[in-house]
């Protein structure tokens, strides 16, 4: 079956020989290729509905072509503008608050003295990552309800406040709670990557620094942080790509009528307009806009990182 057993030189093998030798490998590949073809690539042509007034009854062939009308409509749509603004504002805040937190936490975890304490606390901090937003949301309501939530209950019983704080039912309070819960959910898990990078730093550097009299903070600042700079940049690039997209599950679980102003972000817009009000073309156009901006942002920040002499992502 295999005549060509010499060290395989990729460039010189012909397709015929490659098939003869590796037909079983190509056979295996058929399964994943079929999956992406059926469930991903087959959906791409559906994107043409952004240039149509798509009507599910008439289908793609029967719906009317309207050119760029849909895009004109969404940029005039007050709901879209509002959703765009809150999306960008909240995702930037998420990045601002949520991005440094795992780095800080990783630096602290790395400095902890007792291995067992470190291990147990790490295990506990990773937990929120393994819970669905439905669980986190429902527990958050149990904690933050205006009068019967644990936090308000405790504060009122202690006589610190007289009336419950509307953590999740007034928009500014909601904004803070929403952001902090997001940070809380991601902070523990986020440390893993940085801790991995920290363990890759040469231990001799620390020894040398200690001999030179650098204290803990100086070692953190001059050795640990520079040591994980590449990782930080990579993750920053990946996160910048998400500035447009939000997590629908996270947003919907904290939805209520009082906080609509802030909660109605692009992910919610796409879901509501599309699957609930039947404005298919508008929803898809916004979805497309969102993913394109995401891809462009990733490419741009990758370019900038490379210009600054970092490794980049791609």
């Amino acid at each position, binding site marked *: 079956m295999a005549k060509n057993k010499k060290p395989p030189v990729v460039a010189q093998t012909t397709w015929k020989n490659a098939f003869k030798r590796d037909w*079983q490998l190509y056979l295996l590949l058929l399964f994943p290729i079929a999956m992406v073809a059926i469930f991903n690539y087959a959906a791409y042509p559906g994107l043409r509905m952004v240039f149509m007034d798509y009507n599910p009854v008439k289908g793609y062939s029967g719906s009317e072509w309207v050119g760029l009308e849909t895009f004109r409509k969404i940029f005039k749509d007050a709901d879209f503008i509002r959703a765009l603004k809150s999306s960008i504002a909240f995702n930037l805040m998420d990045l601002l608050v949520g991005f440094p937190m795992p780095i800080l936490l990783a630096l602290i975890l790395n400095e902890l003295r007792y291995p067992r304490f470190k291990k147990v606390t790490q295990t506990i901090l990773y937990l929120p990552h393994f819970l669905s*937003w439905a669980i986190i949301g429902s527990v958050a309501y149990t904690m933050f309800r205006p009068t019967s939530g644990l936090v308000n209950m405790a504060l009122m019983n202690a006589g610190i406040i007289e009336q419950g704080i509307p953590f999740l039912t007034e928009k500014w309070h909601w904004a803070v709670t929403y952001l902090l819960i997001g940070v809380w959910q991601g902070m523990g898990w986020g440390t893993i990557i940085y801790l991995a990078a920290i363990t890759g730093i040469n231990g001799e550097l620390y020894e040398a620094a200690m001999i030179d009299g650098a204290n803990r903070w100086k070692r953190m600042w001059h050795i640990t942080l520079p040591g994980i700079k590449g990782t930080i940049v990579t993750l920053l690039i990946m996160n910048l790509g998400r500035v447009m997209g939000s997590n629908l599950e996270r947003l919907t679980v904290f939805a209520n009528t009082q906080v609509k102003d802030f909660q109605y972000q692009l992910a919610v817009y796409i879901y509501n307009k599309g699957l609930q009000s039947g404005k298919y073309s508008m929803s898809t156009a916004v979805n497309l806009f969102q993913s394109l901006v995401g891809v462009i942002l990733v490419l741009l920040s990758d370019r900038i990182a490379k210009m600054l002499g970092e490794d980049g992502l791609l």
Partner: protein
Amino acid sequence: MAKNTNTAGRDGQVSSDGSRAVNKFRISDALMMLFITVLCATCILPFLHVAVKSISGNSYVLAKQVYFLPKGINFEAYGSIFRDGSLVWSMGYSVLVTLIFTVLGMLVCTCAAYPLSKKRLKGKTGITFLLMIPMYFSAGIIPSFVLMYNLKLYDTMWVLIWPLIYSPYNMLIMKTFFQSSIPDSLEESAFLDGASNFQILFKIVIPLSKPIIATLSLFYAVGRWNAYADNMYYIKSENLKMAQYKLYQMVSSASEAQSVTLSEAAAVTSTPEVLQAAFIMFVTLPIICIYPFVQKYFVKSAMAGAVKG
């Protein structure tokens, strides 16, 4: 960087601890431990509170006397969940969906990762590219929805399985494992002995890959168990909804009732908090029970994936 990961965990630990052993215990150590302890408390106490509430007496909960110790212990709420049966059904159903999803997911993942881990495979770059694009760009909700509808998958169990079983991210992790942890020489010698690609895969590679198979299975299982956005898009029938989605629906209807502050008292009596707490615990417990045993696998492979970045 990839070389470091396997040994890094141990080496780094030793060297960084060793270098610090010279120091005395300082205030900064105490502060750091305090900070970490407080953060850990925020991860545990809310769940403890919910658990305690779920087994407390209704009247004590309404009187706001229940914090972290149960009062008037009873399991009435869990009893009514079992009597009602619909949540028990969706738990069983979720387990079934998760199992099928995980098995098929691992299958498709291996089918993609093994061939692509071979340097000699002709057309490898093109195929890898083809299989990675969906990670960066998806058609979006509506085109996918129309597609599922046309494929006759709408409102069936399979719509929760097929579209997501191929995960580019998991494939990358597995491919990296094959490339870095299975020596080429081993496969080459088998090849010279006349073993076919299938034989090498089943007799050599898979037995050597048990750790990564365990880890990725967990990735798949936890991912499927927790996600419910696709339930929102594609599932209408009550008995095809997964447990997390049912919990979500309960939260969102309860939060609407709660948001009108005035009617809160009424809302509390109509939707007993204890029952809600029991509902939350019922859905959360499976994860919390297996979590301590599986998390170390997660950490390992997350690190492997991270380094690949």
